């Protein structure tokens, strides 16, 4: 049996890697993928805590995170496509204004 703290520690490491990806990269697509890494790190912690407490609640929460992530990716990619159509470039540093 693997201790719960190992899973939570791994989840923390993965979350930090995701944060670094968001901070370092300039491509919005890669930033989105880093956000997915962070969401998955949280999911891992959810399931591990659920096992620790002997309850299914953790897994139910992961199910909702999955749905929210799907919606987030769809809307986010649509926004990126719209920005690309407008500007022909993809760099988050150039997108400092909310208006087109």
């Amino acid at each position: 049996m693997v201790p719960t703290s190992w899973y939570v520690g791994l989840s923390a490491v993965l979350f930090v890697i995701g944060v670094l990806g968001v901070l370092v990269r300039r491509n919005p697509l890669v930033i989105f993928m880093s956000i997915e890494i962070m969401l998955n790190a949280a999911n891992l912690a959810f399931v591990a805590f659920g096992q620790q407490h002997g309850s299914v609640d953790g897994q139910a929460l992961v199910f909702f995170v999955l749905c929210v992530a799907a919606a987030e990716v769809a809307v986010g990619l649509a926004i990126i496509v719209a920005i690309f159509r407008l500007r022909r470039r993809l760099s988050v540093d150039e997108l400092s204004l909310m208006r087109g």
Partner: protein
Amino acid sequence: MTPAIVTFWILAVLAVGSAVGLVLRRNPIHGALFLVVHLATLGAFFLQMRAEFLAAAQVIVYAGAIAVLFVFAIMVLIPGREETGPDPLRAQRWLAVPVGGLLLIVLAVMLRSGLFRGAPATRTVPGGVAAIGLELFTDYLYPFEVTSVLLLAALVGVIALTKRRTA
């Protein structure tokens, strides 16, 4: 070293390695392929923790649908040029490393504080479709219905966002 622990370390190395690869590789397509490996590894972790339904959902929704969506967007946008030019914010970007290290230290201190050191539950948690379904349609019925509204709103929003305006 029991088989479970050996499996954990193999999967942990795969998960961390693919995540680091995603952050470091310049080509977004390579990043998307690393993401598929990462998500599949997470699915294997769920399987190891006896969450069979989540493992299946992870592979279908994440490694299937979301990864395909990413690859599709990359193919449509043909990016990769934006990170080849000179970086005006290079000094700020190096700040990310100490910030990430600090975050890791904070999380490690939280873990060491003994907050999570209770004995694990003796009974095993059911992870099959029956257990999750029972939970979703009793205790979590209202959030479940709200989720369907969220997905519908996302669907409509995406269509509205990407629709070409006809003059």
